[in-house]
């Protein structure tokens, strides 16, 4: 095998179990090196399934270990990792789950995966102090309506048509036996004000408000969107939530 080709041959054979062992490899004892090469196939596959199971433990618990491994292997073929930082692997996994036919009976599963991916991103996010009440009150009142905010690096919002937060919590905490009505829409706001990741179940109107602020809309625009989402929207309570959750990093007015 020419020197420049063995890596490509390894990669092809590792990713496709149906491929023959690359040429040019040998056992010191003679005989076929096939089972020896399988060690590498196995190491790569098993370690990546494990990495995904570590990132998506609730998804794994919901579908079961074996089915999760099948799902993970299909995902790895379609989306092999492009970075050695495996804690960043699997951002395409939630969308991939939506195409996984056996999971069609669990339409909430992709949103659970979105929450789990956001949770791990928050866990590793930069250490930045969230927006403080002092920073907000330092803004002149006449400038407040046009103020825009910067999302905190740990913050993410998953707006689900399903009870994603309740299902996430039940499976992350290992609860069983409780009845969950999956059809109740929930909005999960993931933040990390200090070292611990937090998941807040916030209302429709607060989700509309927070999504707008996190996207850089003005406070006025965010309040309009919040009020449009739900007539019970309470701006001062929403501002309180914005401060206590730590979803924003700074304000610019």
């Amino acid at each position, binding site marked *: *095998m020419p*020197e*420049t080709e*063995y*890596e*490509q041959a*390894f*990669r092809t054979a*590792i990713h496709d179990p149906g491929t023959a062992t690359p040429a*040019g*490899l*040998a*056992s*010191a*004892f*003679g*005989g*076929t*090196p*096939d*089972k*020896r*090469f399988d*060690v*590498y196939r196995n*190491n*790569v596959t098993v*370690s*990546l399934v494990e*990495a995904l199971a570590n990132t998506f433990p609730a998804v794994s618990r919901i579908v079961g270990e074996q089915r999760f491994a099948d799902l993970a292997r299909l995902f790895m073929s379609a989306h*092999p*990792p*492009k*970075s*050695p*930082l*495996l*804690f960043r692997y699997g951002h395409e996994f939630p969308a991939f789950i939506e195409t996984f036919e056996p999971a069609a009976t669990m339409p909430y599963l992709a949103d659970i995966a979105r929450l789990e991916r956001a949770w791990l991103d*928050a*866990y*590793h*996010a*930069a*250490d*930045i102090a969230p927006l403080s009440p002092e920073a907000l009150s330092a803004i002149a009142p006449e400038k407040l309506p046009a103020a825009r905010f910067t999302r905190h*690096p*740990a913050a993410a919002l998953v707006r689900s048509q399903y009870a994603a937060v309740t299902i996430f919590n039940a499976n992350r905490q290992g609860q069983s036996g409780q009845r969950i009505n999956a059809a109740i829409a929930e909005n999960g706001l993931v933040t*990390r004000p200090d*070292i611990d990741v937090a998941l807040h179940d916030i209302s429709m109107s607060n989700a509309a408000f927070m999504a707008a602020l996190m996207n850089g809309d003005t406070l006025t625009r965010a309040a309009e969107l919040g009020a449009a989402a739900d007539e019970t929207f309470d701006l001062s309570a929403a501002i309180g939530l914005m401060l206590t959750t730590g979803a924003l990093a700074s304000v610019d007015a």
Partner: protein
Amino acid sequence: MNSHVAIAKDQGLRFPAFPVDGLSGASFKPEHFEAISADDEFSGFLEIHAENYMGDGGAPHRFLSAMRERFPLSLHGVCMSIGGLGDLDKEHLARFADLVRRYEPALVSEHLAWSTHDDVFLNDLLPLPYTSETLSRVCAHIDQAQEAIGRRILLENPSTYLLFEESTYAETDFLEEIVDRTGCGLLLDVNNVFVSATNHGASAMDYLAEFPLEHVGEIHLAGHAEQDDGEGHLLLIDSHDGQVADAVWKLYEILIGQCGPIPTLVEWDNDVPDWHVLKSEAAAARAILDRNAQTFLLGRRHA
């Protein structure tokens, strides 16, 4: 906290400059953070896989900073792909350099292996043929890595499961050439020596006899698993999931008897047990180091 860190760094006082001479250590696993924090006895060093600490912030860095305040650190890279055909990932090198600057490790190491082809990451330490072409490329990569991090690195001998027909160098000769050309040091993994020797029907003692021991700056010990190769031969797997095998302890004791104390790390990465189990493995290595230290001159350097 961040402002204190910035000030301390400017003054060059961020962490104590703990030496690792004569010490043993264990892999640091986040699940052991509380047990180690409460442990007043452990006086070894800790080793981390660099990639696990390449996130921006959060708990991993908080844990590691607290550990680094108390113990010497070994920064062990797993994914640089030094043995790869392609160029090293400059972003990865920059992240590695940041960790070296931030945590001031006593030891820095990587593997003679590859894991990235084109832009796809194959999460394993994959083997390479030992030829003059691969030798040049590995040396260029080590030069580049040492330049990027501003430090000498220790290169680890791999566990291998098969051989390349095109190889023209023995692994020990290949490593010796790398050391001569790049000035890097070596991390001698005694479990890898035993695993590879068994897998290739060779003698671990012969391998050690050929190994450029004077350049070894760290030793690794770890557990391995047993399989068969489908052709009636034992195939050992570098699994890091159990205690160090008796045969590996024997090799280690002979080695330390010949070379004197070399910082020694017990790796345990899968099926990780309670901290006290890792600690007792590290203590077993330390006992061998201490026993042999007496026969060597104080302060003798090995790498």
